[in-house]
């Protein structure tokens, strides 16, 4: 596994296994904390008027993003979505690079040409999303195809939302992957709302994983706030894909605890609903179990949080001091040499 380049770095891992070791359980908690701290900083920057463009957070989705990406091996590919910051971090993306992207700086992975998680980092095998939801699924299937043709033994993990999964390209990509038995895992992050539209206005079906039957592949619906469950479910799907048995569809049920973006007050979300979901906060759930198992103490949590705060603060300052790309670069790089 790629060694994380973050401070307070979790330990080196062997290949992911079916069951999590205690140090790995702590890693998951660490990455969820780090993802939330980054999201909180992104929101702060937005409110200070320092962010370029919109702020899209993954608050409530940390267990799904972190638990799923943690099931991947070093040579596997990640095609994340816009609420999967934790997945980027698990793959070893630096916090500095996250904020260079958020602040549209010249030294960012897209050199300021695109924002947020829309970058690609081939060294970490991360290929970011586009705003046209669903468009990445056929591309992810193509990477799975290439990996298969070359005998890489690698799998591809990608994501879509409860709204985005209604696009035709999701169906077309997943069906192709199913027919060709490509090593693709598709996670539907059902976070109850697609912008302002509730899930029952998107689907007549009760379980989105029921779609899997239509593709002749396994499908399952899980509690997406339970990081261990997400990990184990994804590990099994990855293992199956690696054995050449094809795709798996996983519906991970979560809650989008913030608006679609920071400009959305989410007044259409019933308060009781948020309160109910708050009880299932993925970080709090994880922390409670780790404390009960005596893997975490208040002291170790405080240390971890202060290390993370320092790391994020340093990255934000670094990115803020980094210059924008020069305007004369706007028309460069449209074509590859």
């Amino acid at each position, binding site marked *: 596994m790629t060694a994380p380049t973050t401070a307070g770095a979790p330990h080196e891992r062997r290949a992911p296994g079916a069951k999590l070791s205690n140090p790995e359980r702590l890693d998951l908690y660490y990455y969820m904390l780090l993802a939330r701290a980054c999201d909180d900083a992104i929101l702060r920057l937005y409110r200070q008027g320092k962010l370029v463009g919109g702020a899209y957070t993954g608050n409530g989705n940390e267990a799904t993003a972190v638990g799923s990406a943690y099931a991947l091996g070093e040579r596997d*590919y990640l095609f994340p979505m816009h609420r999967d910051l934790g997945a980027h971090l698990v793959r070893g993306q630096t916090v500095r690079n996250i904020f260079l992207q958020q602040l549209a700086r010249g030294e960012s*992975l*897209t*050199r300021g*040409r*695109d924002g947020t998680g*829309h*970058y*690609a980092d*081939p060294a970490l095998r991360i*290929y970011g999303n*586009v705003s*046209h939801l669903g*468009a*990445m*699924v*056929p*591309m*992810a*299937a*193509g*990477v*799975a*195809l*290439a*990996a298969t*043709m070359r005998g890489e033994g690698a799998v591809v993990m990608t994501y879509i939302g409860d709204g985005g999964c209604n696009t*035709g*390209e999701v169906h*077309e*990509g997943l*069906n*192709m992957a199913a*027919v*060709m038995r490509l090593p693709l895992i598709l996670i539907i992050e059902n976070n109850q709302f697609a912008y302002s539209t509730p899930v029952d206005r998107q689907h007549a079906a009760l379980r989105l994983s029921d779609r899997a039957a239509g593709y002749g592949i396994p499908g399952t619906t899980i509690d997406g706030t339970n990081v261990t469950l997400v990990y184990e479910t994804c590990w099994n799907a990855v293992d199956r894909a690696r054995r050449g048995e094809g795709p798996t569809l996983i519906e991970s049920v979560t809650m989008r605890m913030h608006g679609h973006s920071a400009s959305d007050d989410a007044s259409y979300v019933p308060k009781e609903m948020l309160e109910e979901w708050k009880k299932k906060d993925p970080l709090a759930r994880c922390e409670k179990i780790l404390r009960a198992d005596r893997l975490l103490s208040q002291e170790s949590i405080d240390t971890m949080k202060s290390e993370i705060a320092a790391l994020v603060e340093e990255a934000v300052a670094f990115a803020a001091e980094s210059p924008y790309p020069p305007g004369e670069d706007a028309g460069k*790089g*449209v*074509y*590859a*040499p």
Partner: protein
Amino acid sequence: MPVMTYIDAISRAMWEEMERDPSVFLIGEDIGVYGGAFKATKGFIGHFGPSRVIDSVLSEAAIVGAATGAAVVGMRPIAEMQFADFVTCAFNQIVTNAAKIHYRWGIPVPLVLRLPTGGYIHGGPYHSASTESWFAHVPGLKVVAPSTPADARGLLKSAVRDNNPVMFFEFKYLYRRVKGEVPEGDVTVPIGKADVKREGTDAVVITYGSTVHFALEAADVLAGEDGFQAKVLDLRTLLPLDREAILGAVRETGKVLIVHEDTLTGGVGAEVAALIAEHAFGALDAPVRRVGALDAPVPFAPTLEEAHLPDAGRIVRALRELMRY
């Protein structure tokens, strides 16, 4: 030099590129066992095997999306649309994903999309359309439209070796009607270079694809009956346009007729005309003229299709009017 049909030249280019580079593979509907709707890939699956000649599901978005993904991680796919008309179903993959990837990510996308295009075959509104001008408007794509077997082979070989998504338009009308000499050996034709298909200094017909042949026919009529020599400039690549060749031909002749099979409004010819107006206005002896299809879908009935699409007669009339100006 061996003589072959336009479609055989395309097949040969693919075969040679697949032999040359193991990262080249084919993906499309009915291209493997069946050999393709136009038989461009007949015999390929037996030689290269089903993992490099992929019979895909019926989904243009999946074909182009998968090819784009494979290209991003270093493969060199040649994807086939059964008819260029159906590229609309993959539009998002082309313009949103493939075309913008290098700009955003700095990663090459060596993807070739083969598009059997155009009319004159009684295919009706959904098997005859010209779709090239949509893509000629998209930064990040290259758009190629050869008119001869030699250009088709040479440009397809260049397209496969190019590190950008190349929209390769093949004119169905020319598939088996046009035969020509094709050079032996590994000869490529550069993308972005126009070619003079007929010399002449009285006027220039700027065209591409199927209408190159009508333009040549019309120029011969004019030479024989009117004593005028019209140059025929074959654009060959629509994005990027060969500005130097276009402007040079305008300066040399002073009279310009732009011809394409595509509809006139917003067609590639409009961009060529704008380019001339902007950079060679002083060299013009007459207003730029255009001949294209009617601004209508390509109709089914032979009488309607004939009235819809440009032919040599229409080019002759336009050239005569231009010469009289």
